[in-house]
């Protein structure tokens, strides 16, 4: 008796399974899924390709940190990557500049952590990062490009623009002076534009606005009346604040202050939280780099730990922001003025070619905790895996501290200040020890209204009481369960790998769960995961898939494969030949950083892995589990026909294979080529019954191209009876720009009385 058995799209959605005995796995689940993807209609297709971002980097060092910085304003996004001792960036809006250096000199091959601080006490957006070894840093992420080549020793660096892109006002003056512009009507609120810049569009001059009335803006002097010119109100993208005067004195008052009888600090642009460099003071101890706690027109108050030497006014003291440096062509140089919207005034420039990227230099905060697990929890930066930090001892005195099992919390809305008074008050920084589970903190991830603190064998949640006490409210969540490395933050769940190789989610697993629960979503791959090295587990959730990269063996040096979990079908789509040191998104597109190189690739890009003009092939393999044909009674079963259905584009070759009884060698193997010459609309493919013996060639039909340019095919191939107990079917492909999708496998099964005595056990 012959009968047909089909595996179709719904069955393919079971995806890769590696737990049950192969003969007991669900029909349609796969034992091999290499570089495959389950399509949106449930078929099996090769994974999509990758494309190198920017120029190829031949460094031997792998990516040790990748992040995309998206600011509150504007449309730009800046991707940052770390490798070797370098931090480089790629700006979406300056793609022509390619990758450019932000900073170097970090401890080689150290892992960097990142978090964004948007809108804080500085009203500025920062990328906060640290690698455990060098100081905690913040970076504004501003990028422009050289406008014309810069010669060595030049004193002006000309760029496309040093202004932010937004234009807040665009007016023409009705009256003017060297420090004011007046407009018609009363369009403004008083001091609405303080801290912004006026941009004289004709001359390109920019000046900081120090005050405004309803119709007059006042700014730092232009040196002469500009006339009734057209002007804009803009923001300076690059940091600038400078005060140089003989009216500046230093007061040893604990906390120490710097005073200016000329009351020029605010008009110069200084703000609380700024890191400043002082030079020119008569007392050597007063020259250095300090953090501003508060600032008024006449007084800058420094951190309590700073010990200035009392000094009366008289010397020409210069105070500038520590961040007033730009980096281009790989070299950093300080700037002293921004006279025009397109220039930086420098002491002596280094050479740079036209269109080279120019970026602001990160600011360093040596006293802040040096950890590389960073989270932003309700405008507080939480730092874990801290190698060293400053902390208060039992007596309240500041001292050095080292505890990778504690997490450090910044002041509310201030990402660079982790201090707290001897008697901590609300809003200050904090240090929380987690003497549970042992080991370092492996990640910190905010989710819902808490931040989760992960160690290898411990998870707790923390949030701050929204009251006058502002205390950390901690809840141990899981004991003896934790994350071996970084955690993937998904839309609804967190995903992490445990030390015993359980790919686990944490979330509200069931609607009745009051408390988040963990679930081993990787259970179906347990036997596979057990063979992997997971100590450098990294991943990302993108659209409805979770991608995570691990090592294919426990001895593999670096992550070399990526597994794909489909949240919709709750199954694994396969194992991709992508070794990632980290994932990120730029412009909502998915990227990964090489684990064994310094390159970043866009994922899901096409049908080949593209590096420059080279299109590397993608090798795709799929095989179902062995299905058990063992019949009841004394029957034996056989296959004599297979049926295939799917979509294919011209120039694509698929190799179909069928296996029996656990053999690695297929008993049937043939190619199906979607060459254009084989496309005979509505007709047989290349042979017909009557002209060719059965089994010599596949028979089938193929359709007109669909909107995606593919043609639907279906064909059946016959072959001599293959008696077996267990059979498996699959396909392989190898090449660039191959395009196909398998949507159905069919089997013609014949059941017959067993005549094979070897398969009957006598008792």
């Amino acid at each position: 008796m012959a009968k047909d058995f089909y595996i179709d799209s719904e069955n393919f959605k079971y995806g890769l399974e590696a737990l049950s005995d192969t003969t007991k796995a669900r029909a349609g689940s796969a034992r091999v899924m290499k570089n495959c993807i389950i399509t949106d209609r449930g078929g099996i297709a090769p994974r999509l390709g990758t494309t190198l971002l920017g120029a190829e980097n031949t460094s031997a060092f792998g990516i040790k940190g990748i992040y995309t910085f998206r600011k509150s304003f504007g449309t730009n996004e800046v991707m940052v990557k770390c490798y070797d001792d370098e931090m480089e960036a790629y700006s979406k809006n300056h793609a022509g500049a390619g990758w450019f250096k932000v900073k170097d000199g970090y401890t080689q091959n150290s892992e960097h952590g990142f978090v964004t601080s948007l809108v804080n006490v500085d009203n500025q957006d920062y990328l906060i990062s640290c690698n455990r070894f060098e100081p905690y840093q913040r970076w504004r992420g501003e990028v422009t490009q050289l406008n014309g080549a810069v010669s060595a020793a030049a004193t002006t660096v000309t760029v496309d623009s040093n202004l932010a892109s937004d234009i807040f006002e665009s007016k023409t003056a009705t009256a003017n002076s060297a420090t004011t512009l007046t407009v018609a009507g009363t369009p403004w609120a008083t001091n609405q534009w303080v801290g912004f810049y006026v941009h004289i569009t004709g001359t390109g001059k920019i000046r900081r606005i120090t005050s405004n009335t309803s119709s007059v803006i006042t700014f730092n002097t232009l040196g002469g009346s500009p006339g009734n010119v057209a002007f804009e109100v803009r923001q300076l993208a690059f940091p600038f604040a400078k005060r140089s005067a003989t009216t500046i004195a230093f007061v040893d008052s604990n906390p120490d202050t710097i005073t200016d009888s000329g009351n020029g600090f605010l008009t110069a642009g200084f703000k609380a939280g700024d890191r400043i460099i002082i030079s020119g003071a008569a007392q050597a101890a007063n020259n250095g780099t300090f953090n501003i706690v508060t600032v008024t027109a006449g007084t800058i108050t420094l951190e309590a730990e700073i010990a200035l030497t009392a000094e009366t006014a008289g010397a020409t003291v210069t105070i500038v922001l520590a961040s007033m440096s730009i980096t281009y062509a790989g070299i950093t140089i300080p700037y002293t003025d921004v006279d025009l919207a397109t220039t930086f005034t420098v002491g002596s420039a280094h050479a740079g070619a036209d269109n080279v990227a120019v970026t602001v230099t990160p600011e360093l905060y040596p006293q802040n905790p040096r950890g590389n697990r960073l989270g932003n929890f309700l405008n507080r930066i939480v730092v874990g895996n801290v190698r060293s930090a400053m902390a208060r001892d039992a007596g309240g005195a500041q001292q050095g501290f080292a505890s990778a099992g504690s997490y450090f919390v910044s002041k509310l809305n201030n990402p660079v200040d982790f201090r707290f008074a001897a008697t901590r008050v609300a809003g200050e920084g904090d240090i929380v020890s987690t003497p549970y589970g042992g080991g370092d903190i492996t990640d910190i991830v905010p989710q819902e209204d808490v931040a989760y603190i992960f160690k290898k064998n411990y998870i707790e949640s923390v949030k701050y009481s929204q009251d006058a006490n502002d205390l950390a409210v901690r809840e141990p969540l899981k004991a003896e369960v934790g994350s071996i490395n970084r955690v993937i933050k998904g839309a609804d769940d967190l995903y992490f790998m445990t030390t015993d190789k359980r790919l686990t989610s944490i979330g509200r697993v069931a609607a009745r769960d009051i408390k988040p629960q963990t679930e081993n979503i990787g259970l179906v791959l347990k036997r596979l995961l057990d063979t992997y090295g997971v100590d450098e587990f990294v991943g990302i959730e993108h659209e409805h898939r979770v991608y995570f990269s691990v090592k294919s063996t426990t001895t593999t040096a670096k992550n070399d494969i990526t597994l794909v979990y489909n949240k919709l079908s709750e199954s694994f789509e396969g194992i991709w030949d992508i070794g990632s040191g980290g994932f990120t998104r730029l412009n909502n597109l998915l990227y990964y950083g090489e684990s064994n190189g310094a390159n970043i690739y866009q994922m899901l890009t096409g049908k080949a892995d593209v590096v420059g003009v080279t299109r590397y092939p993608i090798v795709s393999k799929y095989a179902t589990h062995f299905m058990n044909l063992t019949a009841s009674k004394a029957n034996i079963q056989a296959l004599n026909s297979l049926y295939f259905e799917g979509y294919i584009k011209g120039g694509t070759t698929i190799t179909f294979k069928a296996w029996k009884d656990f053999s690695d060698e297929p008993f049937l193997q043939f190619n199906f080529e979607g060459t254009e010459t084989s496309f005979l609309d509505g007709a047989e493919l290349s042979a017909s019954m009557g002209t060719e013996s059965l089994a010599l060639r596949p028979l089938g039909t193929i359709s007109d191209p669909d909107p995606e340019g593919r043609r639907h095919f279906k064909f059946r191939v016959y072959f001599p009876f293959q008696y077996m107990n267990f059979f498996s079917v699959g396909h392989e492909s190898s090449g660039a720009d191959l395009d196909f999708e398998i949507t159905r496998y069919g089997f013609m099964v014949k059941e017959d009385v067993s005549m094979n005595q070897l398969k009957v056990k006598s008792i």
Partner: protein
Amino acid sequence: MSLNFITIPTKRLGANITAASTSFKLSDILGWDGVALTAADFGTQAFAVFRNDSNTVMEIMEFDPATIASTNITITRRGLKFNSDTITTEVTNNKLTWIKNETLVEIGTNTPQMYQWLKNYIDGVAIAGAAEASTTVKGIVEQATQAETNAGTETGATGAKLFVSPNILLSNLGSFITIETIAGLTHSLTTTAGQRVIVWAKGDLHIGGSGSATITLQYNSVTKDTQSIDVAYAHRQAFSLMYTETPGAGTQNITVSAGDRVVIIVMKIGI
């Protein structure tokens, strides 16, 4: 160049390479013992075999073992020939594109180039590295020429000890010993440097009565041997003289001072 023979677990290619690439990355560089390989495991020259997972294509490369611990291992030659007639010949068509993870990399395999290298090594070391023969050490020797044999040269042009081949030895033996026989009291003897001579002279003496006499054998007027004889009346008394020496190159007379039926026999040894 040195090359060590080591077995290493199969590796996977860590990053795609094109036919023009000059370096490659591996999934790991661990040996069977789980310890990272070092340049010393390979020597100064090493070969790798790249093949796809289905064993349908392969490429042999030479790589620089000094870079084994680097993420990028430097390739020194691509597309080496599939036979072993040379180690260094690159074949353009043998240079292929290789796909990460899909590609198996054998860096401890027995490539034809390794065998050729071994042959070249043995060929080279058999002469260059072998000891020279001496009276106490077995080793290499050099065949002596006729002239060297004739001259008694000890060491050949290669610096090795000389040995005499049978044919040269045989050809020399005939002229190595020469014998000159002369009847009479005088023989003009010509010798070459180094030749040794054995000189005999025999005869008898009749005085004409009884008495005694002394017979001398001289070379170049230098007495080499004497014999005193007493002769009874009317009798003859036989005498025999002899000497050996290495006279050096020259031509001088050998003389017997008196006698009848004197025969001088000279055996010259040497050429």
